[in-house]
């Protein structure tokens, strides 16, 4: 019985394994090989030339790359930080108004499942200097017009705002679920002991919500690092390179300059970074139950 079970198990896993082998392992190996070559699609006559670690060495000497990485980190930190803080506040407020929670829940779903492409283009229009609604409202209020996407000092913030807008609802819903799952006893005990709301919040609510805050943080961080079309369609990385995050730069190297070798190297480097980050976030915090499961 056990033997047939084992065979059956392997059989059940086979399709998935095939997918990962064929579409995962094979392209990754290819990517590594290409990253060790000089291969430009716009120069097919030159073909593929083995150049060893040259592409990786270029990465070290590429200030534009490191600027892009810094921007990506900055984007993540601000977007995640703000959406966590805002989400927490809103979840607490929402928790208090149980009676109309349903309405809010439905409303909050919409930004989360609207395509980032749609959101990005919509905000591009809203931010427009001449015709955008935000500037029109500013005008009505007799305030000066603001260049959200054209002013290099501000572009990243405009993009970060869009990300916050889209994903804070998720943080709210996660923390709300957390609040609802908290046991009542500690609160009652604290009230009996005469603790004030601030103390209750800091010493009971927050620590007990830790798991949920961590989940929200990890998910938000992962998603913030994946952002691509939200920025690309709104600013194309501009003005200049003011909003060019790592993903935008990789896309530019690969699909505007068609430098396949360098782009593969960048891709592998990124995967390595993400895996490292993910390992730290996921395994060490155990938010997905994978710690010593």
């Amino acid at each position, binding site marked *: 019985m056990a033997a047939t079970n084992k065979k059956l198990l392997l059989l059940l896993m086979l399709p998935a394994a095939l997918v990962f082998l064929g579409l995962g392992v094979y392209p990754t190996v290819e990517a590594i090989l290409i990253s060790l070559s000089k291969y430009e699609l*716009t120069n097919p006559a030159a073909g593929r030339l083995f150049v060893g670690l040259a592409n990786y060495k270029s990465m070290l000497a590429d200030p534009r790359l490191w600027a892009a990485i810094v921007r990506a980190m900055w984007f993540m930190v601000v977007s995640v930080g703000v959406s966590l803080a805002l989400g927490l506040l809103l979840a607490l407020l929402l928790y208090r108004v149980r009676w109309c929670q349903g309405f809010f829940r439905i409303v909050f779903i919409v930004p989360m499942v609207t395509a980032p492409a749609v959101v990005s283009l919509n905000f591009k229009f809203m931010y427009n200097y001449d015709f955008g609604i935000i500037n029109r409202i500013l005008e009505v209020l007799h305030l000066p*017009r603001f260049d959200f996407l*054209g002013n290099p000092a501000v572009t990243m913030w405009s993009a970060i705002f869009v990300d916050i807008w889209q994903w804070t609802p998720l943080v709210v819903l996660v923390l709300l679920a957390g609040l609802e799952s908290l046991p009542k006893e500690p609160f009652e005990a604290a009230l009996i002991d005469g603790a004030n709301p601030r103390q209750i919040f800091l010493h009971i609510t927050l620590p007990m919500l830790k798991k949920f805050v961590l989940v929200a943080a990890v998910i938000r961080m992962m998603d913030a690092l994946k952002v691509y079309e939200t920025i690309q369609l709104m600013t194309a990385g*501009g003005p*200049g390179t003011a909003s060019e995050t790592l993903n935008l730069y990789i896309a530019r190297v690969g*699909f505007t300059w068609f430098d396949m070798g360098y782009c593969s190297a960048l891709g592998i480097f990124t995967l390595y970074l993400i895996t490292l980050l993910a390992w730290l976030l996921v395994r060490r915090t155990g938010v997905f139950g994978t710690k010593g499961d």
Partner: protein
Amino acid sequence: MLRKLPAILITLLALTALLVGCGEKGKTQENSADPRKAFAGTTLKVLLKTGYEAEAIKQFVGDFEQATGIKVEYEIYDEPTMRNKFILDSTSQTGAYDVVATQFWYMPEYLRAGWLEPLDSYIAEKSDAAWSSVRHIPQGLLAPYKGSDGKLYALPVSASGGVLIYRKDIFEQYKIPVPQTTEDVLAAAKSLKAAGVNVYPFVGRGDPSSASFGTSAGWAWAYGAKVLDGERVTINTPEMKHAMGDFVQLLRQYGPPNQAVIGWDVMSELFRQGKAAMNFDMSGFPSVYANKEVSSVADKIGVTLLKGPGGKYAQWMYSEGLGISRYSKNKEAAWLFIQWRTSLDVAKKEFEAGVRYDFVDPRVYEVPEYKEKTKSIEFFTSQLPEILASVDATYWPAIPEFEQVAQAFQKEISAAIAGSKTVDQALAIAQNEVEKIITKK
């Protein structure tokens, strides 16, 4: 019943084959009568860039479809997207596009990669008598589309030089002389601003795209400055510093606040809505600005050429053509299409409809209807010969790596316009980056 099924099926099949065969015969009999209908029933996929070159196709493609029975599906995108799609299509050899718009500055890249079909044999053997115009086009305008093998790889559709387009009414109102040099432009902008004019004294392209490189590089040539001198990178030179210093000042102080993200489409929109007094750009724009249907300042504009401290004309060299993709599966039908597009017939329709007034086929200028129609914009059309003569291609970096070089340069200029760095810093960085690109070649 079931046993009879095979027999029924076979009969049906035979009947169908007969009908289809008859239909085909009928068609070929029709075809031998009209060579234009030889490819009737084919669908052509045409990849175009936004702009007035695409307008004619949008408006008049019905004529082509009627005359040939070929269905045309065109896709219009902004330039970077269009180039991207063409390259992705060519590198994957999908042949998703048959006809593609070819901006002259990408020709070196496309030619090196061999993605376009050489046209010489088509011209020699398959010319459509009425539509073909290539033998009338001046050699100079065909040059950008020729490969190192001397073969022609695309037919030019438009060509342009650089002009200053200004608001006659505003200049008259504030009694400012028409600028003849780059210094005049700066002086005029300064005067206008000081006088409190309620429009932007100047609008140009300030965004970091390779398309906007044309403005910066063209302006610089008036000062005798260029990006590449052979294989040498000459960005960090006194002439370029002077040129870009003036240019950045012009856009930053006298242009719209978001000048650093304005590309040609927004620039055009602003000028057409009467929001700017001057615009330096391609000589294709006066046609658009003088079109009453899209411009509110159609009868208020003037055009002039500019010279600079280097004794040369400020340039805006541009040309766009149509080519056939090497991987197209309908090359002959595509050839018919591009001949139609560049024909005198279509040119006539274009100026009648006010789509544009500048053409590469000099025969157009002799057509009586043209002279009639352009009476009101004679100020522009009379200058066309001079404009085309002022075109000096020596400043242009005609290399396959154009896209990277142009972006490396233009993004720095754009940053300087936005004020996030000085012109000197911008040029130093650009020099460095372009050198890297050239040495990597």
